[in-house]
């Protein structure tokens, strides 16, 4: 579908509150049917950006288009194109689940005739059938979150925006919500913010990391690993003359480096950490070349940075870029700040 506009198109978005810049020149797009994770530390500007996407908050500068329509120029149209679950998922305490969904369905202009079957469908999808007649205030956190998701997808909008949909859930409930979000892939564009990084990595096609109101990294989790770390790490336990190691590695790949080496243990094996710029798995070739150099190998593992490492490195990188500017701005009064 090359002619279709992106589900979300954000261009040079800026939001300031009373002189404080919450969002600073953010640009990104989300394709139709794509699931995108929106990550960032607390106060990075995630919730503000999401609120601007829904039309709830006006932007200070820049533009946001939802399925080709401008949020600022056509707010009514935009509200018909989005399903939104805000942070902390506020719900009326004294309504029953089915009653609440009916009310929201009417507000979202779902035709009365279709609303009943659609409510049954979302109750089924979100596994809420057992609690459909219960008062929302009496539901557990997991059920409440699912009521929020059911409400967001009720009118089948092309864009779903969820601000921390899995906050406060236990691992089992997270799994259910994750499967639920994954089931929307291809049908609805979903943008979700979360602090549970493995969940984002498993659910999302692409990730956007923002910090201090700026996009600091964007891409698939694998792309981000490559972009941010740019190297693969191998850990070996070898026995033999360690001085032959650099030459042996250079034969395999010129970018190989020995970054860490321990003293030999009682059995003569030492632990060695190697890094290389090469992306592909060189484990088998390493084994072959080390054996050829008479180095006995007891263990070999390729260490992948976790997504948490990627997140921390991305947000630290942005801090490093911003901190010198801040220091320049306040040289006399600001004490030296440690890099987190």
């Amino acid at each position, binding site marked *: 579908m090359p002619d279709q506009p992106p589900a979300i198109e954000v261009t040079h978005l800026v939001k300031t509150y009373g002189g404080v810049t919450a969002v600073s020149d953010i640009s990104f797009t989300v394709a139709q049917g794509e699931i995108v994770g929106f990550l960032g530390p607390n106060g990075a500007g995630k919730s503000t950006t999401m609120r601007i996407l829904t039309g709830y908050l006006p932007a200070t500068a820049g533009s946001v288009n939802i399925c080709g329509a401008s949020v600022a120029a056509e707010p009514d149209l935009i509200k018909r194109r989005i399903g939104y*679950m805000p942070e902390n998922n506020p719900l009326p305490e004294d309504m029953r689940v089915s009653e609440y969904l009916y009310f929201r369905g009417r507000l979202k202009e779902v035709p009365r005739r279709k609303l009943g079957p659609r409510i049954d469908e979302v109750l089924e999808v979100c596994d809420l059938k057992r609690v459909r007649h219960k008062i929302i205030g009496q539901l557990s956190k997991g059920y409440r979150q699912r009521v929020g998701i059911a409400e967001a997808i009720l009118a089948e909008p092309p864009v779903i925006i969820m601000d921390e949909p899995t906050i406060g859930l236990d691992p089992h409930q997270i799994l259910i919500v994750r499967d639920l979000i994954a089931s929307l892939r291809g049908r609805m564009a979903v943008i979700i913010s979360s602090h549970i990084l493995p969940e984002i990595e498993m659910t999302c096609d692409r990730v956007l990391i923002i910090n201090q109101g700026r996009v600091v990294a964007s891409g698939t989790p694998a792309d981000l690993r490559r972009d941010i770390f740019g190297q693969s790490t191998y850990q070996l336990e070898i026995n033999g003359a360690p001085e032959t190691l650099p030459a042996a590695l250079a034969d395999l790949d010129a970018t190989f480096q020995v970054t860490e080496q321990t003293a030999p243990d009682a059995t003569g094996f030492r632990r060695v950490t190697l890094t290389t710029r090469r992306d592909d798995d060189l484990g088998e070739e390493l084994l072959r070349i080390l054996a050829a150099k008479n180095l006995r190998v007891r263990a070999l593992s390729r260490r992948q940075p976790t997504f948490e490492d990627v997140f921390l490195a991305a947000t630290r990188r942005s801090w490093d870029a911003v901190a010198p500017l801040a220091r320049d701005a306040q040289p006399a009064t600001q004490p030296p700040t440690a890099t987190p």
Partner: protein
Amino acid sequence: MKHFPTLLSHEIRMLLVSPATYVAATLFLAFMGLIFTKILEIYSGTPQEASPASVYFQLFWLPTCVMVPLLTMKCLAEERRLGTIETLLTTPVTTTEVVVAKFGAAYVLYLSLWGSTGGFFYILRKFSGDARVLDSGPLLGGFLFIAISGLFFIAIGVFASSLTRNQSVAAIISGVLLGLLILGGNALTDSAWIEHGLLRPAKAVIDYGHVFGHRDDFVRGVVDTRHVLFYVSGTVLALLFSILSVEVKLLHS
């Protein structure tokens, strides 16, 4: 105003499941019942010139100053405290629809509570068997005054609720504003000092907004369009300020 019926029915339902509504209704009916009983006691003791209906509406301000805050304190303050205003305003509804629906629901309840006190007069008529004790003119005029002034009083309550996230604070603001409007105007009208000097032009304005004077006119059967205009324009103004207050708070949320 496409979503107004959906919002209105939802708001009425929410008021009917709120304990504050039943507290307000019980206090109101108990108080009005007490007043009515006292009136009957007085009338059964000595003959009076004024009809029981006109005396009945003399103390309208007391239940109004208590009941209106109780009915309206929750409407916008609670939505903002819980954050449900955010989910509400990201559906295709406007702030105006939300505010007017909340006003409408509180007003419907206010009217039905006052309307239910009409039962006191029905019972009196039924048991006395004398149609003269029920002077329909003051009765209808009194209820018409309640209906028209109620628009403004409820709108003030909605406005107070739009100013804060705290229901109790909203109730206090609403009570104070109603007290100033109803009793403050009365106190100023009765003051001699306001008729002198620079304040003399203000006297006309205060007289125009003299709620007790309006009540007396309505009960006498005089429906002055200036009084109606006062309450209707006050209602529109209070609702406009409520809408603005909600929108301004959204911008700074």
